């Protein structure tokens, strides 16, 4: 049984904020196949193409047939915890301040033996299921969970180190005028977030949904305009130290390509809202998040980017929009490197066309704002780094993996 988390008290302002530490991040190049799977919440191990042996730890030569064809494939995650120990003494500073720390040997049904972190409800001699998680260093680790869900299991302290669960955390939604921003406020309230700051620019301008937003428990509407450096800085100064998760919901969706659009006014706006908006948020909130990565139960946990899946492959009908999204994706990769020392994850959530006004002419399937919001919360609860929402996003992800050139041609026709 996992003890339920207790809502953290207000922080003593005189208390020193602990500096974040990381477990060892270094992995062999091959082992980052696990990191790729963990980023998406898959459980993948190497499976030999020639003899089908499932392999762990990651290798460059099959220990059954010497084959070099060892791709990572999703495999069954069940196994038995055959031995466990509690590490009381660790040579690593990160674990040293977190001992006692349980680890164990799991014999997987598919073959290999994995030394894994243990959820508190995983018991020696019992069946467990393994998850791949990104630890505070951003590299993949295996974690053994009880075979079936147990009460409060997300509150397990070892597991919570690997996730960005919004429970008892404080969230900033940067733009509450959007349908997605409003759906997110609801979703975070349901997920147990302590405070949901919702940014509104030019608050004198009315917008639909304001009343509903105000009715959501623990929502606090705050002035924030991502196109205004001063406004972003001010908000960070005001509330930055009590924001644990930032979700950038600022959007700017207009059709039009790069060649066939007249003038740069719209393009400049796109870049101002999306790319420069992100840069302003990153500069204002990033350093505070990074410094608070180990600040107790409600430590800083994540920066979430909502990105059109067309950041990955330009969609010429929305070609200029796609380019701005691609700029944000590139910035997000940089932010990952910059926030990793604080153990703060940058989660990119890729979505297909939304069921909103700005995609009015686009045929289905489309993504409902509530579905996108749900995926964001689930991704944080699982500690993911890359999430694909909706059929179009999934379709593009798969086609990119197979043949990007074919996708480039087909998406233009």
């Amino acid at each position: 049984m996992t003890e339920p988390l207790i809502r953290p008290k207000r922080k003593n302002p005189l208390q020193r904020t602990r500096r974040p530490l990381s477990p060892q991040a270094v992995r062999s190049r091959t082992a980052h196949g696990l990191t790729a799977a963990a980023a998406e919440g898959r459980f993948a191990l190497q499976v030999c193409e020639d003899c089908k042996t499932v392999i762990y730890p990651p290798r460059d030569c099959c220990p059954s047939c010497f084959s070099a064809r060892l791709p990572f494939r999703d495999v069954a995650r069940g196994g038995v915890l055959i031995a466990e120990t509690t590490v009381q003494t660790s040579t690593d500073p990160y674990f040293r301040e977190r001992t006692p720390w349980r680890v164990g040997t799991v014999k997987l049904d598919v073959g290999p033996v994995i030394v894994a972190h243990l959820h508190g409800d995983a018991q020696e001699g019992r069946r467990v299921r393994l998850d791949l998680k990104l630890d505070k260093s951003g590299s993949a680790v295996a974690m053994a969970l009880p075979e079936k869900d147990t009460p409060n299991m997300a509150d397990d302290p070892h597991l919570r180190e690997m996730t960005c669960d919004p429970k008892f955390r404080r969230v900033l939604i940067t733009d509450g005028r959007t349908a997605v921003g409003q759906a997110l406020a609801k979703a975070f309230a349901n997920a147990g977030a302590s405070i949901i700051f919702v940014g509104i620019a030019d608050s004198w301008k009315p917008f639909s949904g304001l009343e509903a937003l105000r009715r959501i428990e623990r929502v606090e509407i705050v002035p924030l305009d991502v196109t205004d450096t001063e406004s972003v800085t001010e908000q960070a100064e005001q509330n930055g130290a009590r924001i644990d998760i930032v979700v950038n919901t600022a959007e700017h969706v207009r059709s039009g390509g790069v060649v066939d659009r007249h003038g740069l006014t719209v393009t400049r706006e796109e870049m101002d809202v999306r790319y420069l908006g992100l840069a302003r948020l990153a500069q204002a909130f990033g350093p505070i998040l990074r410094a608070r990565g180990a600040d107790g139960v409600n430590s800083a946990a994540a920066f979430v980017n909502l990105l059109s899946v067309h950041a990955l492959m330009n969609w010429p009908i929305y070609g200029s929009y796609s380019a701005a999204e691609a700029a944000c994706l590139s910035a997000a990769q940089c932010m990952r490197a910059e926030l990793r020392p604080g153990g703060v994850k940058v989660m990119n959530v890729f979505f297909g066309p939304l069921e909103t006004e700005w995609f009015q002419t686009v045929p289905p399937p489309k993504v409902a704002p509530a579905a996108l919001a749900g995926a964001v919360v689930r991704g944080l609860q699982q500690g993911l780094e890359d999430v694909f929402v909706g059929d179009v996003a999934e379709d593009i992800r798969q086609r990119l993996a197979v043949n990007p050139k074919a996708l480039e041609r087909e998406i233009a026709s």
Partner: protein
Amino acid sequence: MAPDAKRKSYDGVVACLPVTIPYRRYSTNSAQWWLGRALQELTKRAKLRPVDIDGLSVSSFTVAPDTAVGLTQHFGVSPRWLDHIPFGGASGIVALRRAARAVQAGDADIVACIAGDTNHVDSFRKTLSTFSRFAQDAVYPYGSGGANASFALITKSYMNTYGAKREDFAKICIAQRDNALSIPYAMMKKKLTLDDYMSARPIADPIHLFDCVMPCAGAEGLLVCREATAKSLRLPYVRILSTIERHNAFASDPIQLRGGWAVDISDLWSMADVKPGDVDFLQTYDDYPVIVMMQFEDLGFCAKGEAPDFVRSHTFTNDGSFPHNTSGGQLSVGQAGAGGGLLGLVEAVRQLVAQPFGSRVPDAKTCVVSGFGMINYDRGLSSCAAILARAA
């Protein structure tokens, strides 16, 4: 495949001149320094010039970025046979058997086998985090408990499977401590009681403090040469009756309950033409007591799973019914890195030539020395053993 060729004996090849550079908990000197001291001690006591050493075998974890080749220039030697054996606890016996064959074949006349490491204030952590690719990818990020955590899982599984108790491990550790009390350079010089052992602080349960070796700096060495050479140098020597070596045995066992000795055990005894009952003392590789129990079983002193009973029915001090780790082993003397792989062998030679630092095993004629090493991922991969005999 053709039937196995009969293994050639080691007749005419001997091991002699055991040297130990007294251990220190921490050292500001380099591994090169420690290995150099062992080499100096060997040549000084054998009255050899550096040029007489025409074979060199080196084992160390902390000489990086050097290899044995770089060490030849560092030490100013010009061997015609050179070996580098970074096999940890298996390196001593592996060095012995390779050197013996080189001498037997005439590729070298006198091989100096040296093993040792330094221990800077932070070198233990660094060695752990970069020990192997699998350790880096699949062990160290999991609590960073090092070998303690890996052996905790193995010990737990052994206890669950065969009913060993902490008191059984205690008996091994306490006897070794008694054997170490007269060793001047032992790290642990205080008598260990059952109460001390049982109430020690937990490290990674069921491993507690006195199940663990103390990392330290030190070096060990000996010479391998022809019997005639040893005689002409007036060095007392021991014969090598048989050796075995095995790596990555029983790879499909989900957790380690046996080591590679079990594969080669009949070879070890038949080549030497002795039986377990003929053995006067045993030197096991003892980085944790559980692996000592596995060696009792896998080397043939008792059946699999019966080591707990074997421990309960014997005494392990040098005057006991089954003298074991006669200088106190690594658990009491300390683990000087790869030097630990040579510790048991060096002490065995001392006992057989009746020149131990500590108490003597009375009238010891035959012994088994065993090595074990390299927790690459979840288990020790290398096992080896040798049977040695007094010359006369």
